[in-house]
């Protein structure tokens, strides 16, 4: 990817600028945007709509962060691989990806963390329910949202459920970060340090 980006500097810089802008937009704006699109098409809140919204708002984060990771690869490595007769795509997959893999994992999991913990963007788009959805068209609830709604309930049982959700959320995030640590350590040993 970045191998090609060395050319076309102007286009690249403007794309980077827009991605940075998109990154900076608060997730509630994405939620509102998704909501207004849904109203336009007359769709009701559903799991699918929420998934699409969340995807929309983490895509700029992922792209831009991976871009940063790739930028750290020195051109010498690129030249070394190319001068062995490798094509650009061979270099990208076999050399760059290997060098960047730990960074890419970190990025993906970071944005996953943001997505799973985000409440605002799905507030309007997935709606709220107490039951587990059985199809993509039904409303659903993310863990943070359910904490938010259940905590404000006067019924103590429901309140307890909020704490349960909080535990589940914490455990999920813990597991993810442990896995990512493990993967990063496994792949980091081949990395060239500069």
């Amino acid at each position, binding site marked *: 990817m970045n191998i090609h980006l060395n050319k076309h500097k102007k286009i690249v810089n403007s794309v980077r600028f827009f991605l940075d802008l998109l990154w900076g937009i608060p997730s509630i704006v994405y939620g509102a945007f998704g909501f207004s699109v849904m109203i336009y098409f007359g769709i009701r809140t559903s799991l699918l709509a929420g998934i699409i919204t969340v995807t929309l708002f983490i895509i700029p984060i992922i792209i831009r962060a991976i871009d940063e990771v790739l930028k750290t690869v020195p051109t010498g490595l690129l030249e*070394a691989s190319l001068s*062995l*007769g490798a094509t650009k795509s061979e270099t990208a997959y076999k050399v760059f990806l290997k060098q960047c893999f730990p960074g890419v994992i970190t990025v993906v999991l970071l944005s996953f963390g943001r997505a799973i913990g985000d409440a605002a963007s799905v507030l309007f788009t997935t709606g709220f329910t107490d039951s587990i959805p059985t199809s993509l068209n039904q409303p659903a609830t993310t863990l943070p949202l359910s904490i938010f709604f259940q905590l404000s309930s006067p019924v103590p049982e429901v309140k307890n459920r909020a704490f349960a959700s909080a535990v589940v959320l914490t455990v999920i995030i813990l597991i993810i970060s442990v896995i990512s640590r493990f993967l990063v350590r496994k792949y980091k040993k*081949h990395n060239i*340090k500069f």
Partner: protein
Amino acid sequence: MEHKSSIKVNNLNLHIDKQHILKDINLSIPENKITVILGPSGCGKTTLLKCFNRLTDLNEKVKIDGEVIINNENIFTSKTDISLIRKNMGFLSQRPYPLPMSIYDNIAYGLRISGRRKKKYLNKRVEHYLRQANIWDEVKDRLKDPASCLSIGQQQRLCLARGLAVDPEFILADEPTSALDPISSQAIEEKFMQLKQHYTIVLVTHILRQARRIADYVVFMYMGEVIEHGEAQEFFENPKMEKTKAYLKGYYN
């Protein structure tokens, strides 16, 4: 004395943006010799070297006129198969850049991308090239270790082995010893002396003594121009141009 020459440069001009980096270069580089390109920093030595395997393509602002003829073919035509040219040239950069994989895979990488994947064959070739670069004894017990755990000197020899593994005719070396300790440098220099029987070596350096030690043919560049080129002995003992004399006396350093 006329040599058979395998790289010919005709009226090569290179611009980056508006800067004129290489000015009207005309050269022929003799076969199976060590040709040393000498000159102060920033005179275009490295750029000239990178023209030979078209690494200059990486920068889109580079504009090239003129031709570089390798084995009777101009490499700056659109028909040129760039990977083929690059396979034909082992390239050693200033600092070693081992690929982010094991020592074994570093050597096998070049072989694999040219489509040779048989394990037995690879094992044999890897050993052969590591021996050629005088590094076999140091790494034979840890071929599976990441290449990044080697010392810089070892890494540079590994890069040499890697370059040889794609079976080139030329070795392009861009100040290959500038980051190395004296002993590693010596090892590389000695290797070059042995290799020149089979390869055409083009070496960029700014170390005069190194050039005296190993050069057969010298090209002196200054400010993007080739000031003088000729047989090493003739060049060092009897320089013709004023600038060369001054450089040899050390005025530019």
